[in-house]
């Protein structure tokens, strides 16, 4: 029997700064066997260990097929993520996972894709975007809407420019508060919805971001005519064990770490407690 509480060991291969409080890490397993066999799907997460401090659940931020380790993007918020930010390339990081369910990838094939991300909600979407772009022909029209608080708070600044310059998708950005470097739109991300045209009956909408943003995005998507099971989001909860045992993420009869964190709006509505 595997010990699901015992992390695999990775070392930090690279650290990239995204914003003043957000870093992206490239992690590589030190055991070749694990490195070879480790797979995951967009939407899943890992429990990241800083030994001596604790664990934090972080979603995958890179596409699964990289094979050469994987990336996570971490904002320094609590004790574990703050300790993680003090680590350097070469330092140990424990990884348990992959846990959780994943974005409905296969069922989205042949459909148009609409992604709406806010701030630190972009990392799990990036995993999905990169995977989709590797199989671009399998999907219909792709529209990505991204909103950050300020231009400085945009994560994946490089990728955003690269995606924008591709001819095969539409990427619109906005910030809540602009500055002198920003020539783009200013306003909350829902304002971008008015500038796009989608066919709700053949589009799957994915949205990740702060709870308040998700609430308004879902409202607007419903107004546009999206069916409740065509709106996909991720539910935030304090996840401790990641394996559906410790009880912290339990809501109703579901465990966010096992039955989620990806849920359709239809499923979220049926939960006995508000998300």
């Amino acid at each position, binding site marked *: 029997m*595997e010990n699901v509480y015992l992390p695999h060991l990775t070392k930090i291969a690279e650290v990239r700064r995204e914003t003043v409080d957000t870093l992206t890490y490239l992690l590589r397993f030190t055991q070749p066997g694990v490195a070879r066999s480790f797979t995951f799907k967009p939407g899943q997460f890992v429990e990241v260990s800083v030994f001596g401090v604790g664990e934090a659940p972080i979603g995958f931020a890179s596409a699964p097929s990289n094979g050469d380790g994987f990336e996570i993007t971490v904002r320094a918020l609590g004790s574990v993520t703050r300790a993680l930010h003090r680590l350097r390339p070469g330092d*140990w990081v424990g990884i348990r996972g992959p846990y959780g369910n994943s974005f409905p990838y296969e069922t989205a094939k042949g459909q148009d894709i609409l992604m709406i991300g806010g701030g630190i909600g972009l990392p799990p979407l990036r995993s999905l975007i990169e995977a989709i772009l590797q199989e671009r022909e399998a999907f219909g029209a792709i529209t990505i809407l991204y909103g950050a608080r300020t231009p400085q708070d945009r994560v994946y600044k490089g990728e955003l420019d690269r995606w924008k310059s591709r001819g095969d998708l539409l990427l619109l950005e906005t910030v809540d508060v602009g500055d002198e470097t920003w020539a783009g739109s200013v306003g909350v991300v829902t304002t971008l919805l008015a500038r796009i045209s989608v066919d709700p009956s053949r589009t799957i909408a994915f949205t990740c971001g702060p709870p308040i943003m998700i609430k308004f995005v879902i409202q607007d998507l419903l107004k546009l005519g999206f069916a409740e099971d065509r709106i996909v989001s991720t539910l935030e909860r304090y996840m401790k064990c990641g394996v559906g*045992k410790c009880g*912290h993420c339990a809501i109703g009869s579901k465990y966010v770490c096992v039955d989620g964190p990806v849920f359709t709006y239809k499923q979220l509505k049926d939960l006995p407690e508000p998300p």
Partner: protein
Amino acid sequence: MGEQMAFRSIQVIQEDAVPPWVATLMREALVIGPRGGGNGDFQLAPLTSVEDLHLDYTHDLLPPMRYLLPPSEVLFRFHNGDSLALIPEYDERRRILFGVRSCDVKGIRYQGQFFHRDFPDIYFSKRAANAILISLACPTPPLPTCFCVCCDGGPVLKPGEGSDIQLTPLEGRYLVEVDSEAGERLVAKTPELFREATPADLAERNEALAEVDQKFSTSAYLARGIAKVTTDAVPAEIWEELAERCIGCGGCSYLCPLCTCFTIVDRSRDGTAGERVRRWDHCQSAGFTREASGHNPRAQKREQFKRRFFHKLSYQCLQREGRPGCVGCGRCVTACMMGIDMAAVLLRFRELGRKPKWGPPWAAKPKTSP
């Protein structure tokens, strides 16, 4: 589905033959049996000699499942030297849990299913695999706080419900129902202490259990509670009224044979060496669901209180776990300082829509003096 399960054998052991039998068991494994503690407390604790055995006991406030899922345990130790070493700590000591009440056996069964699902828990599994349960049925309720008959929690087990051997007290002797190979081996160690049960023995047992329902003083039947909680038919004011009294001590969860929640913490002086520990936790604590950002989706006490009862009584959870989340052991009734235990809450649900009577915890304000 499949044939009706039956006990492998039904035997009888005389009361005075039990200590010699336990003495042989003590040579086999660590025997955890009923003994006295301080202040007249009973404990299901390791026996150091047969004289410690106290079969005429009520129950251990700490449920015996805590031998399989301890209040805290080291998951692994880590050591950051040339390389980082993670050393897990397992407990594979052989234990015989002797005198476990039926409600607790059901609880252990529930825990086993829970910990085995999806991602099997190796720590629990190893302890469970090395534990043999010899249970003790209850023809009369051991304590006035017992209400297992209301919860499919006892007082007697059927074949296949998780006990290796079930003892039922009769006049001067015990009925011995063997329900597993491991149980058979333990009886076979001292065959001279046992004899086959006769129809008369079985008749005495049946008679003792026939009217058992009437002997329980608490009538907190789960069914209405399940219905009300599943359909969210309990008004918010009632949850508020109950939760207002909760001081978040966690006693109800720590002592519940079916509660499984835990937290995981790291202990280390400077990060180079230390351990990761798992420790019991409870959903009545304000910080149970608080996220790193500080946001707490279940910040209100009444929401936390409601959660406990949803988890234990709702049909959705019953389906997932295979049985309701309460066996009526009554430990929460003992443990709750403010009178809002499972039995009190179930009785409160029964009063919904009626004027509350005097006496029970939810009673309206005392009448004012003239």
